[in-house]
């Protein structure tokens, strides 16, 4: 009996960790591509509606644009820029994997290239985009 118990225990301990797929760079870039794609889609929906206000009156359009100029929406806009930039760069990577003969071999290197270019473009952009918000929040009013 004791012998059988020990055997079962060994089986339980050595059982495979399940069938959940856990990929590496390739899976996470796919997840991020999907999430950013959905985010951009919903923003586009809102953005076409807010821009349509130019057909209503200059005043209603200017009022919606004033909300875009607040620090909070400024912060969300950084998120939007980041989402679009990642989706665009990774979309180029996906297309290269599909059409470039060596694409699959270099998919991991291209992933790191995407991230490098992403950071390189995001840093100066965020610096520029937030200048006004910083002045508004912390600047002197003189």
């Amino acid at each position, binding site marked *: 009996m004791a012998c059988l118990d020990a055997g079962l225990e060994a089986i339980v301990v050595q059982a495979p960790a399940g069938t959940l797929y856990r990929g590496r760079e390739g899976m996470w870039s796919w997840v991020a591509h*999907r999430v950013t*794609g*959905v985010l*951009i*889609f919903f923003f*586009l*929906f809102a953005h*076409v*509606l807010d*821009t*349509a206000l*130019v*057909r209503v*009156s*200059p005043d209603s*359009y*200017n009022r919606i*644009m004033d909300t*875009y*100029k607040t620090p909070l929406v*400024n912060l969300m*806009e950084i998120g939007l*820029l980041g989402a*679009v*930039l990642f989706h*665009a760069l990774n*979309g*180029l990577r*996906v*297309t290269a994997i*599909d*059409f470039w003969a060596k694409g699959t071999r270099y998919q991991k290197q291209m992933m790191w290239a995407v991230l490098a270019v992403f950071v390189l473009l995001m840093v100066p*952009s965020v610096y*520029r*985009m937030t200048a*006004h918000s910083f002045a508004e929040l912390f600047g002197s009013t003189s």
Partner: protein
Amino acid sequence: MTAIDATGNMTPGSTVQPDDDDRLRIESPRTRRKRPTQNGRGTNFEMYAWIFMRMSGLLLVFLVLGHLFIMLLLDGGVQRINFAFVAGRWSSPFWQTWDLLQLWLAQLHGTNGLRWIINDYAERDGTRFWLKTLLYTASFLVLVLGTLVIFTFDPDLAG
């Protein structure tokens, strides 16, 4: 007689012969199909959708990143955007064309992307149907509204 239904299930005792319907026929291994991506309806829609995602993506890199660069980074960024700014831009056929192309490509690209995602996660037929109906309705409205706004913009609204 054992038949195989459309979902690939074996139905013991069924009287349906596999070759009652072309879609149910199982070719012998390594039989070459005329067109590798052909689906049951005889169209290559999914292949064209796949190619469209890549081609539209390529164009959108320039259109969308250019748009964001001009609107968020150039000159005063978003702080300078108002009715007069829009009036100035849409007085030029170049920017009208840019925005129209960007609208259509992004909306169609995004709609097909969401269609894929619905197909992946919504398993019940009814759920898929209603989610896609909602998706196509929303996309249609956005395309019509956006196109009308670009073409019927009236700078004289400012008086």
